[in-house]
């Protein structure tokens, strides 16, 4: 976190709620394209897509957060590509709303009853922005904390 007064966030929707990623680690936002499903991977990993000749792993955030999957064919779905330390990773979101500048003063720590356990580690704060509440998450932490479940044969 820098000491600047405000930062920009990519704000997106998952269900009714809005979330935000720090824009500095977002590499690009792509339209949804055909995903090659990787069976027997961790359940929240949707598969891989062809990102200009390289294979990009795509994480389904809804599955990661134990939400109902979106009915297929939603036109607003996007893949937010984030720079992870080894290779970029894509996150499927329902809809990208905007890139918002959010002042430091309007971000609060997440109250303990909203986030608990592991969640508390990747939720970096709750932002109040134009009457909306945006849950700010650190996508790298989401990945990091998911490592344990990767070897399990999911998809069954």
């Amino acid at each position: 976190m820098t000491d600047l007064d405000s930062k920009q966030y990519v704000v997106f929707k998952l269900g009714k709620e809005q979330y935000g990623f720090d824009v500095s680690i977002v590499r690009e936002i792509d339209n949804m394209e055909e995903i090659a499903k990787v069976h027997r991977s961790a359940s929240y990993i949707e598969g891989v897509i062809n990102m200009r000749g390289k294979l990009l792993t795509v994480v389904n955030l809804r599955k990661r957060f134990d939400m109902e999957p979106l009915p297929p064919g939603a036109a607003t779905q996007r893949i937010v590509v984030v720079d992870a330390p080894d290779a970029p990773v894509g996150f499927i979101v329902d809809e990208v709303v905007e890139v918002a500048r959010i002042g430091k003063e309007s971000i609060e720590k997440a109250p303990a009853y909203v986030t608990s356990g592991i969640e508390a580690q990747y939720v970096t704060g709750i932002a109040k922005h134009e009457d909306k509440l945006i849950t700010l998450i650190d996508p790298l932490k989401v990945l990091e904390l998911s490592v344990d479940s990767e070897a399990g044969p999911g998809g069954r």
Partner: protein
Amino acid sequence: MAKDIDMGKYTKMFISEARENLRAMNDSMIELERDPTNKVHVDQIFRSCHTIKGMANMMNMKAVSDLAHALEDLLAAVREGKLAPTGTVAEAIFKGFDSLDAMVLAMEGSQQVQENQPLVEELRSIIAGVAAPEPPKKEKEKEKARPARAAPKRGDTCVNVKFSRKCALPSARAMVIIKELSKAANVMQTTPSDDEIEREQVFEEFSVLLEPGARFQEALKRIVAMTDVEDVAYGLTNEPKEKWQRLAKQEPAVGHVVTEIPLTQTVRVGMDKLDDLLDNVGELVIGRSRLLEKASARDDYDLQEISMLIDKLTSDIQSKVLGIRMIPLDMVMSRFPRMVRDIAKAENKEVELVVEGGSIELDRTVVDRITDPMMHLLRNCVDHGIESVEERERAGKKPKGLIRIVASKQQDHVLIEVSDDGKGIDLDAIRAIAVSRKAMTQEQADEALARDLIDLLFRPGFSTKTEVSEVSGRGVGLDVVKHAVEELGGSVMVNTTKGHGTTFSLWLPFTLAIIEAMLIGIADQTYAVPMSTIVESHRFDTEEIKTIRSREVVQLRGEVLPLIRMRDFFGVERMPERPSFNALVVQSRERRAAIEVDELVGHQQIVVKSLDQRLRRVKGISGGTILGSGKIALILDVDSILGG
């Protein structure tokens, strides 16, 4: 002065050349130790040592050049027959190599290179032991023999530069030249002087008095190549100007100026550049497939002709790029004799290493990544396989143990066999340990086949305890070997006979990048199956499926094959029952099975792309590729499918 300017790339060059020379020296030294009278080897070592010394001098690496110099003197004594290259002398020479190697390593890590004065002294004392120290005259002769040192040493050197008449800003040009010279020499005085130059005096000629440094000649060449410079001459102040060396504009390489060693026609290219090139070629291969597909669908003769041409050129480029990445196995294997010799010495064993097939070429990546596993296996062979001299004599064997590395081409794989004639693996000892570790019950252990027992050795953790290595004579970190080889898409097999020795067989692919594959469809997705794993494809009738202990099998020409339904394996819904189905008979490490697939699409070359590390441990797939359509086909990992 000014020696530290932009040395980075020269350092890199020095490191790689020094390494090559050290490798050659080690090789020859081992040969020499075996055949102490063979002058060819001494000459070879001497030459390499001399090269290293020369380069080190140019780089101002005193620690390296001093040691190389001392080694050179010792080698000279060997060459003259005053010393025999065995015993302590050989040991000292090897120590010298190691120390040089350590210095090079330090340079690579940008660390301070430590002088090894004690070793230099030791080398000198060995020489002193046989004869009076070499007359210094000898060294002088050597110096003279080297064209790189053509610049005279006595008297002051003066460089005279003449500008062309068109020269607009002689003062600016002069400053540039002085700067250039000061990189390679110690500039003492200029005429006109600095001040006069700065005052923008008009002049057509100017001269510089200096002490030339290592890269002096190159600096001169750069100067003569500058615009506005008409003529450059240099020589000693106490010699008449007619005797001076003149560098003409048109032929900058006149006379003794050529400092480079006679150039071999090669270019060094970084691996990363080759990787990039290979990526591009991969895309080109994909593009070609699309072109061919479209062209063949049209009734356009010209287009077809062009696409055929592109097809041929693409194949050529592809095989050439892959060829460039290939290096002979010798690049790593040549280190082994020295290593085996050292380990054997340390353990008081006598071991001979024979290497065959070192000229076989493999992809650089493959060669790089098998180095460690091979070293591991060799260490194991000497440590635990080969017995002590007494033990061997008791067993009626030759006192000297034999380790063989044999590399051979086998269709689309390379087989590297590492075998020893030692005591072999004691299966009963493994049984006992398996039971004590609760990896098997007593009955299981009693019934277990050799193959199953040896498989245990490859399990991580099973073999790390010393009891195994002591009793069975095997097993330190064999899991590491297996892992490394399998990561390359290869496999390991072991054959052992108690009392007679052990053979490790490593099956490796030639290249990792582009493979032949069969495309298949499973549940609306396309997958690629490496051709190297496919035995054949076959259409079975559903009635042919039988069960053995509730596991499905099919028979093909009498052979019973387990049937693996890929849809079940991937956890997707089965196809509705049909009268017959497509299957591939696949094989990995002696195991065979039939895998049921939805459809067979066709045969194609694919460019292997690696998966994110988060997906690397997923069972059933080992990578992916991008098809001509832009869609992804995941590559089936037959080994893990057969394994469960």
